[in-house]
């Protein structure tokens, strides 16, 4: 990996904390955060498309799914 790639990775890792100020949110204020559409993970119904993307593309992982191994995929 070259220097440019490392800089991009560092920016990506620090970006969320740099841009957003975090506000403490009490449990009773989380009605919208707890909505099913707000889950911070891929939906179960996305299993099939995550699979075909791992087979048909060179990149994988970074999404809570498989990043290689376990199948004859990339």
């Amino acid at each position, binding site marked *: 990996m070259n220097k440019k*790639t490392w800089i991009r990775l560092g920016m990506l890792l620090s970006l969320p904390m740099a841009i957003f100020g975090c506000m403490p949110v009490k449990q009773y204020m989380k009605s919208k955060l707890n909505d099913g559409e707000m889950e*911070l993970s891929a939906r179960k119904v996305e299993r099939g498309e995550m*699979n075909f993307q791992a087979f048909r593309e060179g990149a994988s992982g970074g999404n809570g799914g498989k990043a290689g191994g376990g199948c004859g995929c990339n």
Partner: protein
Amino acid sequence: MRKICLTVIGIYLLFLNAFSQVKNDSTGTYKNKNLKLEEVNLISGYYNQNGNHSAVTGGIGTQQLSDVSNIIQLKFIRWDDYDRKHTTDIEAALDHHTAASSAFVSKTGTSGKGGTRFYPSVNWKTENERHRTVSGFGLSYSAEYNYHSLGSNLNFSKTSKDKNREFNAKAQVFLDRVKMILPSELVPAPTVIQPRVITSASGRTSYFAGGILGKDDDIPASQRNTFMTSFSLSQVINRNMQISLLADGVLQQGYLGLPFHRVYWKDGSVHVEKLPSQRLKLPVGLRLNYFSGDHVVFRTYYRFYTDSWGLTAHTASLEVPLKITSFLSVSPFYRYYKQTAIDYFAAYGKHTSASAYYTSNYDYSAFKSDYVGINIRMTPPKGILGIRAFNLMEVRAGRYIQTTGLTANNVSVNLRFK
């Protein structure tokens, strides 16, 4: 006198009230100490694709393929005497695919086109509410005619005191075996060994009946091992927004190609693809979800990927769930993907003997892709079709187009029972 009696009675009643207080359970919920089936998910999908760059025929030829998958997930929970929650997830999955290019593993196109894959897994985790931790391990297995895999994982997560932040770590290993099924014209001819008498160094003689080396049922297998660590950090930003940062580190070793992928060199000779025996992958992803107003959610995702084979990729997706009612949402989505080629890729007839490693598999070429579709999610409070236990139905369909000319359609359904 009357005043004293009334005072004494009053004090006595106060004492009674003090000792009649019942200690409240902190959660207010019943914790089942017996194993209970908490949730069942049935996930089915149909996928088909077509294109003209099959790796089996050296980067040219049909990529027509269809796949049907079925997954059943069972979630069991129980509480122990120390107030810890134990969750066991059992999954069984079965895929069947038909690929036109598989017929051309044989040069004459007479090989079988279909294949079935069975892949079960079991994961167990324990939650400690007092320490706000979850730890667990899992095992997985995958079997298809030419590929077998055994996997295991360990995972740990910790939540902050205010439950606005969560850290996850996972270590995973896959020990795989690839059956070395070569293109028919590249299979070495069987060697016939004639019967003969063998004399050892000590003078003892024995009779060897002869045999054939390299018969069909003697196909060797090569090892492929994958070691993966994953980390994620989730953070609540405010009442309407939360983000998650995900990073994986993956090391693969062993036979990393597929033995039935052909490569045609410039001089017209045909070879099996040859790739390095080690690959290091580094994907980093970011999810950001934002609830705008009362009816619109923005689900965004970005991933940067790089690896030691020279491939760099960017992925970005946006999904916008529109909450028609509190239990029906319709979500159009779009995903963009772009990758550079690996250092060892070249098209049909472009490789030469100067290349130490070579492939014509277009999954490793430079291309962009678009994936667009719609997701419909229903969670009525009285259940789907009035069946209370049937509490979620989700349907997702999309169309995928690559600049290589590959096109695909995917449709999936998830039914949840609770």
